[in-house]
C-alpha cells in the first residue's frame, strides 16, 4: 500500500479509485477498494468469477457508478462519472464481446465513434479510411480495411477494438478477459501490442485469471476476492502459487490428476484416415475405455472441426470410424448420440446453454426421450428429480434446479453442460475447451471430474489450447497442426514448452 501511494505522487494517475464500495441487493460486490493506475502502467486485475472485477470496471467506466468513494481522472475527482465522461477522460473498456458492429467494415468500426464524437454529419470515406489505417498502424497490425467485421477471426476483431480505442485518444485501456478466446500465438501477439501501448504512455488494466499471462505482461498485480482488494504489489512479489492462493483463498495443487499409466480398458473408438475437405485430413486415432485423450492445436488447426465430425455435426467426407470394433456411419448428431457419443461444445453461452431456461431444463435437454414415459409424456417432477441428482453429484452450487442457468457462475454452468451429456449415459465424451472462462478453483474441480469419469470407464477426448490443462487431465496428448495429427505424447513424456513448440506451424515437420 505504501508503495502505491508513494508512486501515485510522482505522476498524476490516469485513474484513481478511492475507497469505492458498491452493493447489489444487499451483497457487497465491491468493498472499500482503492486503486490507482499511472500512465503507461500495465496492471493486472486478477480474481475469480464473482470477485468483483466486472463491477470495478463498471465503476470506473461510469457504466454503473459506485455508491461511495471517489473516482478521479488525471488527478481530478469526478462528482459523477458517465460513460461518455469516462471516454472523454480517455478511459476505454474493451469488453469480451468487443462491442463492434459485426455488419460494418473494419474501417467503419474503427472510425465510426470518432465521427460520432466530433459530431460530423457527413461521412468522408477517404478520411475514415485514413483514420482507421493510422490506428491500425499504431499497433502495427495489418487487417484489410474493407473486410466485414463478422467475417474476421476473433483475434482480429479484438485488434479492431483496440484500434478503435486508440482513435478515441485512450489514456487507459481496460481489457476484460482479452485472451479468453485467443490461441497461444495470438495471445503472444496481443501481449506484444500491450507493450507497444505502454511505450506510448497508454496504461492498460488487464483483467484475467490466466496466470501465465499475468506474469508475462503485467508490472503490478491487484487481486480481488469477494469484492475486497486482498493483495497488491509488483508482479515479481508473486508466483503462480501465491497468486492462486490470493485469488481462491485456498491452495490448489497443479499436479496431474491422471497418470499416463492408468489402466486401459477395451477399445472404444478407432478413427482411420478421417478427412473433411478444408478442415482436417488423414486423422487416425484410438481411444480406449478409461482413457482420457487430449487434442491440442491452435485455432484453425482443425481441432474443433474434428470434434464436430465425430459428433455428426459436420460429418467427415472420407475415412472410417469404428466404435467398439463395429464400423459406424456418423452423418448426423442423432447417429452420434445413438452410438453413445456426447459433445460439450466450445462456446458455452451460444452453443451450449439455454440461458433463460431453468438449470433443470438445461440438464434434461439431451434426455427428454429417456425421461418421457411410454406415451412420450414428460413430467416436470421427473425433470426436477433428474436435475437434482446431477446438481448433487457434480456439486453444482445452486439453491434450486428451478433457477435459470444464467444465475450460475461459469464453472457451474460448465458443470450443467457436463451433467446434460452425462445424463445421456455416453460411452465417449468429447469436451471442447472444458474450462474456458472458468475460474481457477472450479477448473481444478472440473479436471478432477474428467479424471473420475475416465476412471469409471468412459472414453474422454479433451480438446483444448490450455496446455497445463491437457497435461493435468489427459493420459495421452495428440498435437494437431494444419488439419493433421503431427505428434502424439504421453503426459509424462512432454513438457508445456515442448507442446507449445509443437503447436506452432514454424516447428519442423514431424
Amino acid at each position, binding site marked *: 500500500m505504501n508503495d502505491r501511494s508513494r508512486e501515485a505522487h510522482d505522476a498524476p494517475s490516469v485513474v484513481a479509485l478511492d475507497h469505492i464500495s*458498491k452493493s*447489489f*441487493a*444487499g*451483497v457487497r*460486490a465491491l468493498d472499500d477498494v482503492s486503486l490507482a493506475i499511472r500512465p503507461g502502467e500495465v496492471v493486472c486485475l486478477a480474481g475469480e*468469477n*464473482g*470477485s*468483483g*472485477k*466486472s*463491477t470495478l470496471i463498471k465503476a470506473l467506466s461510469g457504466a454503473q457508478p459506485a455508491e461511495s468513494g471517489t473516482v478521479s481522472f488525471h488527478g481530478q475527482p469526478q462528482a459523477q462519472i458517465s460513460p461518455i465522461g469516462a471516454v472523454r477522460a480517455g478511459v476505454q473498456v474493451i*469488453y*469480451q*464481446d468487443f*462491442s463492434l458492429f459485426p455488419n460494418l467494415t473494419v474501417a467503419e468500426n474503427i472510425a465510426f465513434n470518432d465521427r460520432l464524437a466530433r459530431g460530423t454529419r457527413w461521412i468522408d470515406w477517404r478520411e475514415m479510411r485514413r483514420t482507421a489505417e493510422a490506428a491500425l498502424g499504431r499497433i502495427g497490425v495489418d487487417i484489410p480495411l474493407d473486410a466485414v467485421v463478422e467475417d474476421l477471426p476473433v483475434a482480429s476483431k479484438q485488434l479492431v477494438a483496440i484500434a478503435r480505442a486508440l482513435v478515441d485518444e485512450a489514456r487507459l485501456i481496460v481489457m*476484460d*478477459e482479452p485472451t479468453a478466446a485467443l490461441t497461444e500465438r495470438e495471445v503472444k501477439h496481443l501481449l506484444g501490442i500491450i507493450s507497444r501501448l505502454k511505450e506510448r504512455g497508454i496504461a492498460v488494466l488487464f483483467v484475467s485469471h490466466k496466470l501465465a499471462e499475468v506474469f508475462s505482461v503485467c508490472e503490478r498485480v491487484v487481486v480481488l476476492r469477494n469484492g475486497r482488494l486482498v493483495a497488491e504489489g509488483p508482479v515479481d512479489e508473486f508466483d503462480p502459487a501465491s497468486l492462486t492462493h490470493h485469488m481462491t483463498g485456498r491452495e490448489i495443487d497443479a499436479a496431474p490428476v491422471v497418470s499416463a499409466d492408468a489402466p486401459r480398458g477395451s477399445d472404444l473408438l478407432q478413427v482411420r484416415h478421417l478427412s473433411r475437405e478444408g478442415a482436417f485430413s488423414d486423422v487416425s486415432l484410438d481411444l480406449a475405455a478409461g482413457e482420457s485423450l487430449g487434442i491440442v492445436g491452435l485455432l484453425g488447426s482443425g481441432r474443433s472441426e474434428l470434434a464436430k465430425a465425430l459428433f455428426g*455435426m459436420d460429418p467427415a467426407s472420407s475415412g472410417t470410424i469404428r466404435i467398439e470394433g463395429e464400423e459406424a456411419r456418423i452423418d448426423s*448428431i*442423432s447417429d452420434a*448420440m445413438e452410438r453413445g457419443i456426447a*459433445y460439450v*461444445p466450445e462456446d458455452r*453461452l*451460444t*452453443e*451450449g*446453454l*439455454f*440461458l*433463460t*431456461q431453468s438449470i433443470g*431444463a438445461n440438464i*434434461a*435437454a*439431451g434426455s*427428454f*426421450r429417456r425421461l*418421457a414415459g411410454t406415451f*412420450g*409424456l*414428460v*413430467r*416436470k417432477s421427473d*425433470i426436477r428429480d433428474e436435475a437434482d441428482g446431477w446438481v448433487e453429484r457434480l456439486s453444482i452450487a445452486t*439453491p434450486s434446479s*428451478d*433457477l*435459470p442457468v*444464467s*444465475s*450460475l*457462475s*461459469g*464453472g457451474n454452468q460448465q458443470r450443467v453442460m457436463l451433467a*446434460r451429456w452425462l445424463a*445421456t449415459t455416453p460411452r465417449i465424451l468429447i469436451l471442447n475447451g472444458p474450462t474456458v*472462462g472458468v475460474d481457477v478453483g472450479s477448473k481444478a474441480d472440473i479436471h478432477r471430474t474428467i479424471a473420475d469419469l475416465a476412471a469409471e470407464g468412459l472414453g474422454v477426448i479433451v480438446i483444448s489450447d490450455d496446455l497445463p490443462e491437457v497435461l493435468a487431465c489427459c493420459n495421452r496428448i495428440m498435437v494437431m497442426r494444419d488439419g493433421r495429427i503431427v505428434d502424439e505424447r504421453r503426459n509424462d513424456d512432454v513438457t508445456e514448452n515442448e507442446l507449445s513448440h509443437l503447436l506452432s506451424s514454424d516447428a519442423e515437420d514431424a
Partner: protein
Amino acid sequence: MAKTSRIVSSDHRHLLGLAALTVAIFVAMSLARPGLFLTGANMQSMAFQFPEYAILALAMMTAMLTGGIDLSIIGTANLSSILAALAMTALFPTGGNAVAVLALALLVGLSVGCLCGVINGLFIAGIGLPPILATLGTGIVYTGIGVVVTGGSAVVGLPDSFAVLGNAAVWAVPVPLLVFAAVAVVMAFVLNRTIYGHSVYLFGTNPRASRFAGLKNGRLNMTTYMISGTLAALAGLILISRANSAKADYAESYLLITVLIAVLGGTNPYGGVGRVLGVVLAVLSLQFLSSGLNMLQVSNFAKEFVWGLTLLLAMSVTRIEWRRMIDFSGVGRGRSPNAATGDKP
C-alpha cells in the same frame, strides 16, 4: 441470488399483473354499467365473440415460441374454411345429418390447415427462409387461392346443421367457448407435458444450442407450423359458422391483433417464453374492454383506438420485462459483458 429469483418469477409476475388487469376491467365495466355488463346475456354474447380470435392468438403464440411468427394464419383460416364450405355445399346441398356435416367440415378444414402449416414448415425448416417472410408470402398465396376458388364472392348455402359450431349453446355455454376451452387445455398439455413442448421452449430460447443438444430443429419448426395451421383452420370454421358464409377476406383485421394478444399474454417475440394462460387472460381483458366500451356507447372507432392504446401500453410495460431478461441472461442479440464473465455482482 436475489436477482435470480426475480427472473424466475418474472413469468409469474406477468401473469399475476395480467390477471389483475383483467379483473380490474371486469369490475370497472360492471360498476359502470351494472344492468348491462354484469348480465348473463352479456356474458354469453362475449363468450360467442372471443373464441375465434382467441384460437388464432394461440396459433400465433405457438409460432412465436420458436422465435418465429405465423403471418399466414388468416390466409390459412380462410382457405381451409372456404374448401370446407365448398365440400359441405357439394356433398350436403340440402342439409343433412349434423354429425356427418361437422365431421366433413372438420376433416376438410383441419387437413387443409395442417397442409398449409406443412408448406410453411418446408419453407422455414427446409429452405431456411425467415418465418416472417415465409409466412407473409404463403399467407398471400393462401388468400389468393381462396379468391380464385370462390371468384372473390362468398360461399353461401351452408347446411343449417353446421351453424351449431358457431351459434349453439349447451346449457347456456356457447359451443365456440367449449371448443376454445378444449383447445386451450390440449395446447397447455402439449406444451407442458410432451417432449415437443419441452423442446420447443429450448429451441426458441437458443436454436443453436438446441442443435448442439441433439434436438431436431427442423422437426420442431415443422410441428409448430402444423399446429398453428390446424388451429387457424379451426378458428376459420367457427368464423364461417357464425357468418353463415365463407369468403377469402374475412377476419383480416385479426392478424395483427393476434400478435398483440400473444405479446400482451407474455409471449416473448424472441422465442422461448409464452403460456396458454397468458393468452387466455389477454383475450378476456380485451373482450371485457371492448364489450364494456360498447355499452358505454363509445363509438366503434373510438373502441379500436382504445384497444390499440391498451395493447401499446401493455407492450411498453412488458417490454421492460424483456429488457430485464435480456440484460440478465446475456441472450439478446449480443452478450452482456456481465453474463460473459459469469460474474455475479
